[in-house]
C-alpha cells in the first residue's frame, strides 16, 4: 500500500542547488541564471578554491535580497589578493579593501557613513579569512559586535594562513600539518589546544544572529544569509571553505570535503540568535572522521604505519563532542 508522500520530495529534493521540479522561488539563488555573480570569472584563485565559491554564494544572496544595494569590505588575504590584482578586479559590487586586521572597523565606518548620508538601506558586509577573523582582526571584530554595528561579517574559514603559504592560524585544527606546525616530534602537526570557536564567541556577545554554513550546502548557506539579512545590528556568518592547496586535497574534492566535515561532526552547522542556539542542521549520513581526514595530505601522518592512534582518536573525540553538544544526529542515532 502507498505510504505517506513527503511533500518536498522531488528526486534530489533540496540536496542539489537547483531542481527543475521545484518552483524557481524555492531553489537556491546560485542555481538561477540571473544570480549576480558578485565575484566574476577571471579571478586568480587556485583550481577548486572553496573560498571563491563561498564568497560568490554568500554575496550573490546578499545582492538578491538587497536588490544590489550592498557595500563589501574585505580584509587582506587570499580572497582579496586573488580578486583584485591590479589592474583587474573580479568584483561586481562596491568593494573596499584596507588592511588585514581592520575589516570589521572599516565596515563600521562604511555603515556609519551610510547612516550619516541617510542611506541605511544599503547592506554592509565585512568579510575575511580565518586569519583576519579569528586572529589579527579579532579585536576589531569584537568591537564591532559589542557596538552592535549594522554589519554582517562573513568569515571564510579555510583553517590556516593560506595566502602567506599555509601557516597555522587560530582556526587550524589539531594535528593538521602547516608550514609552522610541521610533521616532526612525537605529536606531528598542530597541537591540541582549546580551539577558538569564533561563532560561539560571537554568540557570547549576544548579537542578533550567528550561524555556521558550508559551501557543501548552498541552500542552507543562503537561508542563513537571508536570515541574517532579515535582522539589524551585528551579525556573523562562518563559512567552511576547503582549500586544495593548503589542505593537500584534490581540487575536485572541495565540495566533498566540505560535506564530509559536516557529516563527520567536525564542522557543526548551527545558528543562534541573541546568544542562544536556535537551530542545528542535522548530520544526514554520519561518517567517521577518517573519511574526511584521509582525503587531505595535511593529515597524512595520522594514517601512516606507527602513527600515534591517540591523535586520530583525539580528532574523533572532537567530532563526537560536537555531535553531542549540538545534537547533530536525529534521536536514537549514534
Amino acid at each position, binding site marked *: 500500500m502507498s505510504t505517506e508522500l513527503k511533500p518536498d520530495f522531488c528526486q*534530489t529534493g533540496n540536496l542539489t*542547488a*537547483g531542481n527543475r521540479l521545484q518552483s524557481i522561488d524555492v531553489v537556491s539563488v546560485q542555481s538561477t541564471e540571473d544570480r549576480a555573480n558578485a565575484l566574476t*570569472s*577571471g579571478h586568480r*584563485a587556485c583550481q577548486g578554491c572553496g573560498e571563491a*565559491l563561498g564568497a560568490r554564494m554568500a554575496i550573490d544572496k546578499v545582492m538578491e535580497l538587497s536588490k544590489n544595494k550592498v557595500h563589501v569590505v574585505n580584509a587582506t588575504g587570499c580572497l582579496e589578493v586573488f580578486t583584485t590584482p591590479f589592474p583587474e578586479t573580479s568584483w*561586481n559590487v562596491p568593494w573596499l579593501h584596507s588592511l588585514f586586521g581592520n575589516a570589521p572597523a572599516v565596515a563600521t565606518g562604511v555603515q556609519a557613513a551610510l547612516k550619516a548620508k541617510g542611506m541605511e538601506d544599503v547592506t554592509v558586509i565585512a568579510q575575511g579569512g580565518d586569519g583576519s577573523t579569528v586572529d589579527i582582526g579579532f579585536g576589531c571584530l569584537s568591537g564591532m559586535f559589542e557596538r552592535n554595528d549594522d554589519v554582517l561579517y562573513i568569515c571564510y574559514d579555510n583553517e590556516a594562513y593560506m595566502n602567506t603559504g599555509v601557516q597555522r592560524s587560530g582556526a587550524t585544527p589539531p594535528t593538521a600539518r602547516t608550514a609552522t606546525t610541521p610533521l616532526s616530534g612525537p605529536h606531528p602537526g598542530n597541537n591540541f589546544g582549546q580551539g577558538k570557536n569564533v561563532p560561539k564567541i560571537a554568540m557570547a556577545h549576544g548579537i542578533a544572529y550567528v550561524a555556521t554554513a558550508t559551501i557543501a550546502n548552498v541552500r542552507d548557506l543562503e537561508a542563513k544569509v537571508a536570515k541574517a539579512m532579515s535582522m539589524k545590528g551585528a551579525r556573523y556568518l562562518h563559512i567552511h571553505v576547503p582549500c586544495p592547496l593548503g589542505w593537500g586535497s584534490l*581540487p575536485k574534492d572541495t*565540495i566533498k570535503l566540505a560535506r564530509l566535515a559536516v557529516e563527520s561532526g567536525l564542522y557543526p552547522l548551527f545558528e543562534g540568535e541573541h546568544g542562544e542556539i536556535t537551530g542545528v542542521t542535522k548530520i544526514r549520513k554520519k561518517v567517521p572522521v577518517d573519511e574526511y581526514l584521509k582525503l587531505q595530505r595535511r593529515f597524512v601522518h595520522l594514517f601512516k604505519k606507527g602513527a600515534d592512534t591517540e591523535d586520530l582518536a583525539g580528532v574523533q573525540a572532537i567530532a563526537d563532542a560536537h555531535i553531542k553538544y549540538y545534537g547533530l544526529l536525529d534521536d536514537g542515532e549514534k
Partner: protein
Amino acid sequence: MAFTLPYAITLEVGSSLENKTGDWRTERPVYLDRLPPCNIECPAGENIQAWLGLTQEGKYQEAWEEILDNNPLPSVHGRVCYHPCEDGCNRKQMENPVSIHAIERFLGDQALKNNWVVSKQADTGKHVLVVGAGPGGLSAAYHLCKMGHKVTVVESKAAPGGMMRYGIPEYRLPRDILDAEVKRIEDMGVTFKYNTRIDNLAATMKADGYDAAFLAVGAHLARKLEMPSDDSVNITDAVTYLNDIEANDSKPQLGKKVAVYGGGNTAIDVARSALRLGAEEVTVIYRGPQDKMPAHLFEIEEALEEGIKIAALRTITEYKGGNIIVEVNEMDADQRPQATGKTETIAADAVVYALGQLVDSSLLSDCDGIVENDNVIEVGQQMMTGMDGVFAGGDMIPSARTVTTAVGHGKKAARYITAYLKGETYTPAEKHETASFDKLNTWYYEEENMRQQPVLDLDKRKSTFGEVLGDLDEANAKYEAIRCMSCGNCFECDNCYTVCPDNAIIKLGRGNRFQINYDYCKGCGMCVEECPCGSMLMEPEEL
C-alpha cells in the same frame, strides 16, 4: 592602461573578465549522455528515463507518447512485463528500484481513459503482411502503420493478443485493457483478419500483393512427455488449459486436486488459474530446487500466498491409482538435480504439463530459403529470414520468450522492413556508454522507498480472476517517477553551475541544460564530481 577611474588602485568592476583563466587547464569537463541501465535492460528498447522525466513534470501525454515511440502496449506492459528494467535500476543499490512498470501502467491507462492517439507518417504505398496478432505482430503492425505502410494482420485465432490472451490469465491482464490497446492499433488503420490460417506464405504473398511479411506466430504447441500411466490421473498441458479458459465459455475443470509439472511462469499461471477455477489443492512439481525455479520470484510468492504448494526436487515417474509417483532428487556437486531412487506419492485428479512450448512452422513448408533449426527460424542481422522480404520475430526466433521481447522484435522488424522497402539498410544508432552506479554521486538523492501497488484481497484472489495488482493513483505514480535518478543524463539540478568557483558554466535556461565556458574553466573537476547523475566527464586537454 587607460584609466577611467580616479586612482590607480581603484578598479572598474568585473574587469577580471580580461583574464582568461582557461589556459590553466590540463583537463576539461564535458557533458555527455550515458545510457541508463533501465533502458539497456528494456527488451522493447523504451527510453524509460525520458518518459519518467516527463511524468515527473506531470506531462503524462508526452510521457505516454515517448513510450509509444517504442511500445504500443503500455497498459499491457505495465501489467505483464517482467520489468528487467527494474532489475537494472541503479536505485536498487540504494533502497529499491523505481516501480517503472506501475508508472507505465498508469500512463497506459491514462491514454485509454483519455483516448490519446498517435499520428502516423504519409502513406508509402507499400503493403506488409503480419502473421500473428500476438505482441510481436501487434508491435510490428503498429510501427509499420505509423511509418506509413498499409498493414494486414492475419491471425489464426478468433481474437488478437496471442499468448497475452491465450497464455496470460486474466487476473494478470484484464481483457478489456488488451482489447482497448489493440483497438487503438486497429483505429490507426491496420486490417485484422481473425480465424485465418496461412498454409503457404509464399503463395499468399504473391496472391495478395504483399511487399514484405513479418512472421510472429508464437510458440503455441505444448511440449509433451511420455510416462507410464494407468489413466487414473487426467493429463493435459498448459497451452491447452490456458487456451480453454480463454476460448471456451465453459471453463475447464480438472478436479479437486491438481498438479502442475514445471517451474516456469506458465506453471505458476496454470496453478493459480486452477485454484481460481475451484481446485482445492494445487501442487507445482519441479525437478530442481525451489530457488532455481525459472518463474519470477514475485509470481511464486503470490502463488504461495494464495495457498499453492510447491513440491521441489521431484520428478514425475508414473501415474497410478489416482496418485502421481514422484522420485525425490538431490543436488549434486555441480548443482544439478540427481535422482535418489526414493519415491513419494502425490494424490491428484489431474496433472498439467508446463514444460515449454514449440513453434508451429507449418506455414513455411513451401518457402524456399527459410531455415528452421531446433524449432526456431534463423534470421539475419536485419531480422530477415532466408526468404527475401520475409522477416520473423517473437518466439519464432532464438531469444527470451517474453511479451516485451516480442514487442521489441516487432519494433526492430518494422524499421528493418521499412529500410528494406526503400532499398536501404537500417543501422541502429550507436549506444552510449552505460550509466553504471559508480558514475553517480548518490549523496544528492533522497532515500525513499518504492510506492507499492495495492493488492486484491486474498479471498477474492482465490475465487475470482479479478486483477491481483491495483493501480498507483496519480499522486503515487508521479511520486514514484520522481524517484528516478536520471542516471547518465542531465536533469538540470544546477549543481555544476553552482559549484564552479570560476563561473565557467553557463546556464542556458530550464530545459536547455548548460554549456562550459572554456575561457575561464580552470579544470578543477568539481562540476564532474558533484554531478549527481554522471552526465559529465573529465577529458585530458589537448596540449
